[in-house]
């Protein structure tokens, strides 16, 4: 039965819903796969075998009773990033601060997955509080890239993407604040989508940077991501920033795109997202992808987004500022870690010592950066200026989308680097997100889809597709068309494994 783990979510759903296999068998196959490979990959921080099987059995019982599946993905298991709360199931955010915490409530995304009959296999590894691009900032040790276990799986959602590439799960949920879904997708040759800001509820998503955070779907195919996106998307009254508008037909867009006709679609190549600092193999893969889009009938033009060059700087003021406030609640008073509560320390000292012990270096760095940027006398120069840049970048996008339907760029400037290579150089690490950050600042939708392997190191490269806010369906149409024309990339990993 182990070949069940090689199927796409859409294929698994069909087999389960037609009674060819049970959801419990599918879930068990993935739990077995996790048991077999996760010692090497370390995609999971917590595996909830019982919970997943219980959901699967409930789906099976429903189907056996002749009822229609509760959702197109009913019975198809999933890996959930450990930044989304799960009632009664550990949620650590990759931090020691929350070790052992059992949330008393489900995130809206978690609840929608449960209601859709999606078994949650477990919680995936991540950079602490989603701050990082390699999972090396996890307090529980890094995740390893299935393409090369010595290399990073991307971050912060490295666990979710690695679980897909290692065939431990057919679907995963990530969150993307500056690229944390798309960059891991790119470096593992999987698909990841950052929906329009407000498209998926943030309720129960432990906040890093509230105005940028967005949960989204991860899969091995564009259609799988679309099916999952439809399950988790939609208005949530518990999230004031959630958009109260219908979700476009995403799976239909993916199926339409897979027919391979992009006639009438205008694609813009962002001039500013290439050049110095981009690996040769990444740029060649990107050029090939653009040529492929033309072959599919798309009209390709170059567009300029002059303020994208300031995106990284603006991001590293806005995100730390918000994080310095969001993470203030971890004070040892109501939940989570508490140290030095021995009667000899004041409440203030317990707070301070707990935060000293509970947070890792990168989190502390960003809390300090943000505290400084918001300080009286510095606010206008830092936070205020960053917000102005944000407005300019949003205008760049708006102007570009006057001319074209989607924008494309490489997802990351380089292929996955070695674990440990950049841990002591935060600025080099931050550059990983240079292509992905503009979409977070503007709040529009973006996807990373595999564009092959770099010709110089044989490692995965991602094509980023960006669409206007609320036009997430364009990502799926263009992404699916490209995917169908290009052919599968992840299969090469199977060939590599077999050759070993």
């Amino acid at each position, binding site marked *: 039965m182990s070949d069940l783990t090689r199927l796409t979510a859409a294929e698994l759903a069909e087999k389960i819903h037609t009674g060819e296999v049970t959801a419990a068998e599918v879930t068990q196959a993935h739990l077995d796969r996790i048991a077999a490979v996760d010692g090497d990959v370390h995609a999971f921080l917590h595996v909830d075998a019982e919970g997943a099987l219980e959901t699967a059995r409930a789906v099976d019982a429903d189907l056996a009773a002749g009822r229609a599946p509760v959702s197109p993905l009913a019975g198809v298991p999933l890996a959930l990033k450990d930044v989304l709360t799960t009632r009664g199931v550990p949620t650590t955010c990759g931090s020691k601060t929350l070790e052992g915490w059992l949330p008393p409530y489900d995130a809206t995304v978690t609840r929608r997955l449960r209601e859709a009959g999606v078994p949650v296999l477990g919680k995936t590894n991540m950079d602490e509080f989603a701050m990082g691009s390699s999972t090396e900032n996890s307090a529980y040790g890094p995740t390893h890239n299935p393409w090369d276990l010595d290399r990073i799986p991307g971050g912060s959602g490295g666990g979710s993407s690695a679980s897909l590439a290692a065939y431990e799960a057919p679907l995963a949920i990530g969150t993307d604040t500056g690229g944390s879904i798309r960059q891991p997708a790119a470096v593992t040759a999987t698909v990841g989508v950052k929906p329009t800001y407000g498209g998926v509820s943030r309720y129960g998503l432990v906040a890093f940077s509230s105005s940028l955070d967005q949960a989204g779907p991860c899969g091995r195919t564009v259609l799988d991501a679309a099916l999952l996106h439809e399950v988790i998307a939609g208005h949530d009254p518990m999230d*004031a920033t959630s958009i109260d508008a219908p979700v476009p037909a995403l799976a239909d867009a993916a199926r339409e795109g897979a027919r391979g006709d992009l006639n009438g679609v205008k694609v813009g190549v962002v001039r500013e997202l290439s050049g110095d600092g981009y690996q040769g193999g990444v740029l060649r893969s990107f050029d090939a992808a653009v040529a492929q889009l033309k072959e599919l009938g798309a009209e390709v033009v170059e567009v300029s987004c002059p303020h994208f060059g300031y995106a990284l700087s603006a991001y590293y003021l806005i995100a730390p500022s918000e994080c310095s406030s969001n993470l203030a609640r971890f004070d040892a008073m109501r939940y989570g870690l508490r140290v030095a509560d021995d009667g000899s320390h004041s409440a203030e000292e317990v707070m301070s010592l707990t935060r000293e012990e509970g947070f890792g270096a990168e989190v502390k760095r960003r809390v300090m950066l943000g505290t400084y940027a918001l300080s009286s006398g510095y606010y206008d120069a830092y936070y205020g200026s960053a917000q102005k840049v944000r407005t300019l970048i949003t205008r760049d996008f708006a102007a570009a989308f006057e001319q074209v339907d989607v924008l494309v760029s490489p997802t990351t400037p380089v292929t996955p680097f070695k674990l440990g290579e950049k841990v002591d150089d935060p600025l080099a690490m931050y550059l990983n997100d240079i292509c992905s950050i503009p979409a977070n600042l503007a709040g529009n939708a973006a996807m990373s889809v595999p564009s092959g392997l770099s010709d110089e190191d044989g490692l995965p490269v991602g094509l980023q597709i960006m669409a206007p806010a609320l036009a997430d369906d364009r990502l799926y149409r263009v992404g699916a068309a490209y995917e169908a024309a290009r052919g599968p990339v992840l299969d090469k990993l199977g060939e590599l494994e077999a050759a070993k």
Partner: protein
Amino acid sequence: MTTTAELMDYAEVVERYDPVLGLEVHVELSTKTKMFCGCPNSFGGDPNTHVCPVCLGMPGALPVVNGTAVESAIRIGLALNCDIAQWCRFARKNYFYPDMPKNFQTSQYDEPIAFDGHLDVVLDDGEVVRVDIERAHMEEDTGKSLHVGGATGRIHGAEHSLLDYNRAGVPLIEIVTKPIAGMGERAPEVARAYVTALRDLLRAMDVSDVRMDQGSLRCDANVSLMAKGANEFGTRTETKNVNSLRSVERAVRYEMTRHAAVLADGGSIKQETRHFQEADGTTAAGRTKETAEDYRYFPEPDLVPIAPTREWVDQLRATIPEMPWQRRKRIQDDWNLTDEELRDLVNTGAVDLVAATVDAGAAQADARSWWVQYLNQAATARETELADLAITPAEVARVIALVGSGELTHKLARQVVDGVLDGEGDPDQVIEARGLKVVSDDSALLAAVDEALAAQPDVADKIRGGKVQAAGAIVGAVMKATKGQADAARVRELILERVGAA
């Protein structure tokens, strides 16, 4: 700990200095639910029972603005003659304190929902003073800490602290005045009159319980002095823990006399927070911090801006009730009151209570008499405000009705009211429990007494005029009418009571 401060004689203070006041009033709205979550907004409750992931600041939880609270905020702004912002946001005020679950307070900073208004305040002698309003903004309340052990009852030096988050997230409106200057010796009175007027207004609007004793209306009084002829304001102190209208006046007056003594002695006032001490009417310095707090305000990213439409604001404007002082003027005309009678009503804080009692069916003269006299004395004896007495206008109206129908005498009625004030139940329950009702025989007798009095109005007037012996004629008439079966002594008592001579 406390050292007795030097104080200057008040007459000298106002001769040498001009006081400048700034009043910050926090009002807890009486919405059904909290500001940003669905938890009940109610006073009391077992600790930590009105809580949820949102108001406990659980990881991942998000706020959603309570629409009714925004509506109340706009209505309050309109009633205070403020401009209403066409677009405004919440901000985060960042500081660490254990009773604040998120370690930031969601508040409004530089974009208040209402700004630039005024409130006309009527002083005891009828003079009207206009107090300018700087802003009214929305925010959330904190939880409550109980510090156990240690000398001060504050967190510093406590052995341990208990936290109750029931109040965390309760909607607050903070109303801030512009500097109130030029009031001279009347400054403390103006402060009290302002808070009183604000309380009456908010109560008339039914947006808050406005109970100072329960903290649903809290006043922080900023006081500074400037020497006569000076152009710049002096350094101010902010006095908190002012829990009654009387305390507002006392606190301002105390700070004026304390500041003056310090300044006259060549000293300088330290800008600090002080706590009013109800027991002796003094203020004491709070714990001083070495560094100024930097709240690192920034717009709350979890909430979307509030942009009230013109139509909505106009609709809300139509719901603003008549201003309490305008209503008083109207009542004076309607009830034909002299200025003195109106002043008694106003000074005792009885206007709304009398009106409500009239609405409940009582004659205005009876209602006025009860509230201004007997109940006002009761409030003084119980050291509380008239409005905070444990009796409702409807209950007073019931007592008046019972007197009118002869089921209670005035004397018994007072005992019934005492019982209600003591929490023994409503008037009928008190009558039942204390066995206070006029014996049933009396009601038959009373009819005969009333008939006899009506038949001989000249005699009745004589008795009323003090000729008690004239009652004999009426007693005789009643005895005749009841065929001698009545108790003559009781009949005599009833006659005297009936004409008000008892």
